[in-house]
């Protein structure tokens, strides 16, 4: 987190439901709009957080009512920082098959993690694989 001053911060724990996830994403997207994000950068953040949220709630917590997702969002003048921590067993993002391999191209798996990696400036997972931290620096031409 290189930005010393964040314009907007959201920290909350949400239940493992996609409805709750989307309500939280909407808060982020509304704040991004308010701080002047649009175009490709806005789309990239929207895509990354959507995929990460679905991963945390569906694949991590398996939509269990006993589990929650810790959400942390920060918007600065030049970047957005997002972290999701689920209560699942975690996964190894490097062990997923490459969805762009010719033999996997028509398989419906692995695209979310790949899109997050491609669209964010930096992405990191903790060792257990139940926490993803994403940072997007705004492009200068947007």
């Amino acid at each position, binding site marked *: 987190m290189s930005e010393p001053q964040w314009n907007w911060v959201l920290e909350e724990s949400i239940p493992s439901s996609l409805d709750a996830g989307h309500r939280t994403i909407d808060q982020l997207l509304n704040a991004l709009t308010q701080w002047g994000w649009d175009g490709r950068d806005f789309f990239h953040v929207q*895509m990354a957080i*959507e995929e990460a949220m*679905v991963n945390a709630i569906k694949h991590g917590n398996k939509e269990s009512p006993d589990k929650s997702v810790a959400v942390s969002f920060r918007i600065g003048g030049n970047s957005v920082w997002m972290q999701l921590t689920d209560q699942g067993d975690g996964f190894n993002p490097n062990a997923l098959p490459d969805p*762009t391999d010719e033999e996997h*191209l*028509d398989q419906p798996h692995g695209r979310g993690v790949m*899109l997050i990696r491609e669209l964010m400036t930096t992405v990191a997972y903790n060792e257990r694989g139940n926490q993803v931290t994403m940072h997007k620096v705004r492009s200068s031409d947007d």
Partner: protein
Amino acid sequence: MAGKRRIVVSDIGEVSVVRFIDRKIVDSANIEEMGEELFSVVEKDKRRFVLLNFDGVEFLSSAALNKLILLDRKAKAAGGKLKLCGLRPEIMEVFTITRLDRVFQIKKTEADGIEAFGL
């Protein structure tokens, strides 16, 4: 083609042009419904030439992409052809990154898409 809530299908000659109701294809229940409706165009309505027009669609998640991949498989299995058109640049970028632009034939406009069937 009554009873479809997520898509609108209109036949232009032999081509069924599909448009999407949702600007953001993101809600999982809606994606499931959209998938079933898309599959029925190929499987129930037996349409062989299907053009998906994404004009007006601002966002779609990888769960929605997966439905398109399954639809492509079903269309091919039925001896049909599926093409896409009207993708905004940000969504086109998603297809390019994931190399799905090699799975689907993607045209700029609806007219280009219809013409590409060569009927």
